[in-house]
């Protein structure tokens, strides 16, 4: 099934100049969670419509008059509009998101990853009743997690990614270090504040030893009493802690 796909098999989009962009497709789990939230809200709104109609009928004493028929008729139409339009109106108004999707961090987008057209969003929701019966099978077995409505509307649902652009993790890398080792350092630097101090010290010491073995002279020797984490940050030059031992710098700044 789609969860088992390797990165090479994972569906991607092709942007300008045919450059591949791997999109984080939302699969059955997260989408079911969003749907659960949305249907809960829908249930509450439907209950509110029914209660509202009954309260109005009681407060204005309409049960004895012919107006009660109109009130119930409007209530019925309101429930129908809610059932049909709840998802579509939200997705069109919130650019591909419902409240449930927003809470879980999902968004319906066009099959090219762009903003889905309003008609496409309407179309995918018109088929919702059919998808409640058969959609899960399509969702499970389609590599892009598309239910019937998505296939017909040319849409798919993706995870929203954080907006931050994190490029300040390291400023220097030991000679010969490839992406896997850079990843280790970047991850460690990002996690330093969340690790237990002794664990952070131990991991920093091990990374510094490896860096020193691979590129002698790379690491800042450290001022007396400075911790391994301080040495790590200074050696790899995280923004604000830049240090260049080879140029004879005095330490972390």
């Amino acid at each position: 099934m789609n969860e088992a796909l390797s990165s090479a098999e994972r569906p991607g989009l092709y942007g300008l100049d045919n450059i591949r962009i791997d999109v984080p497709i939302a699969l059955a789990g997260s989408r079911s969670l969003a749907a659960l939230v949305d249907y809960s809200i829908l249930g509450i709104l439907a209950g509110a419509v029914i209660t509202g109609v009954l309260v109005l009928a009681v407060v204005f004493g309409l049960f004895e008059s012919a107006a009660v028929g109109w009130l119930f008729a409007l209530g019925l139409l309101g429930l129908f509009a809610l059932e049909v339009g709840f998802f579509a109106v939200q997705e069109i108004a919130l650019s591909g998101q419902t409240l449930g999707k927003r809470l879980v961090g999902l968004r319906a987008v066009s099959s090219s990853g762009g903003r889905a057209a309003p008609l496409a969003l309407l179309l995918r929701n018109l088929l919702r009743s059919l998808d409640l019966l058969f959609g899960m099978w399509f969702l499970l077995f389609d590599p892009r997690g598309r239910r019937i409505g998505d296939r017909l509307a040319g849409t798919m649902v993706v995870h929203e990614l954080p907006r931050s652009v994190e490029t300040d993790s390291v400023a220097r890398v030991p000679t010969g270090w490839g992406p896997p080792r850079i990843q280790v350092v970047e991850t460690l630097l990002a996690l330093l504040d969340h690790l237990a101090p002794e664990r952070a010290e131990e991991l920093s010491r091990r990374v510094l030893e490896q860096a020193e073995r691979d590129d002698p002279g790379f690491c800042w020797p450290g001022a007396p009493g400075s911790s391994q984490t301080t040495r790590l940050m200074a050696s790899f030059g995280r923004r604000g802690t830049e240090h260049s031992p080879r140029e004879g710098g005095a330490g972390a700044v």
Partner: protein
Amino acid sequence: MRYERFLELGRGKWEAFGGELDRLERRPRELSHQDLERLSIDYRKILHDHALAGARFPGTRAAQSLQRLAIRANHLLQWGEERPRLSPLHFYGTVFPARFRGLAGELVVCALLMASAALLGLTMTAIDPAVGTSFLGPEAIAGLERGEIWTDQVRGASSLFSSLIATNNMKVAMTAWAGGVIAGLGAFTVLFFNGFMLGAVVITTVHFGMGWALLDFIAAHGPLELSLIVVTAAAGVHIGRAILSPGVVPRGVRVQDAATRSALVLLGCLPWFLVLGLVEGFVSPAPTVSPFLKIAFGLLLEAFFLLIALRPPPPAAAPLPARPSESS
């Protein structure tokens, strides 16, 4: 290129592009044409950096950040299609008739199928009246034997009945349309069932000498209701046809196109069900309105719908005059 050099060269550009995307998302109308031109050029640069980072530094923070930027820019800078005009006049004047005309073949097939199913229901009920009983139920049959037609029960709570009828008919129409996804089978089933039931009910009431009473009830709303069922089912069959026979276009593309076109037909039909609900709730059961008037009203309503649906396309724009250099 070393990783730190890559970061040094790109950092400023990436952060600035992220800021521009924020601006585009928050206040898109503030962006000028030049801003958009610049964004598209920067987007291309970001995509190239993303490709380089993916190949040379996979999994690093820079590669992840560039992937996020590429996805976000792709989302914000690409639009599925232009936002449609929301004017009902434009929709019913141009869009709906064009889509309706595109269903000509399916409409003929669906109308024939429904007529055939009605004929079959009529014949089978004539042979075995139990078929009619199975649709109407023993209570309605007992009423017919007493000279009372079940439609008389509608009188009284007309507003609520109108609403019930309208929402029920819209659900049937949507089911018929959505059923087209199963290679058209769902739409055909709805058509067949409705046609068969119509034939069975008509012959049963005629058998009990209540045919005129039934005509009195259905004359005002029946023609349009049957037409709308046929049209929405034809819209569903249009999708089924695209699934089974996509032609030279890839199936996915053809099905998406058919679904979009047919959804516009469905959307164009839905408001008519509200009108029908009112007619069925107030005009059809009204004893004060003569049957002839109801027949005339029903035909008028049908004619009005067909007038809109069959509206000829607007004349094509006149070709531009040839340039002097071309004409000489």
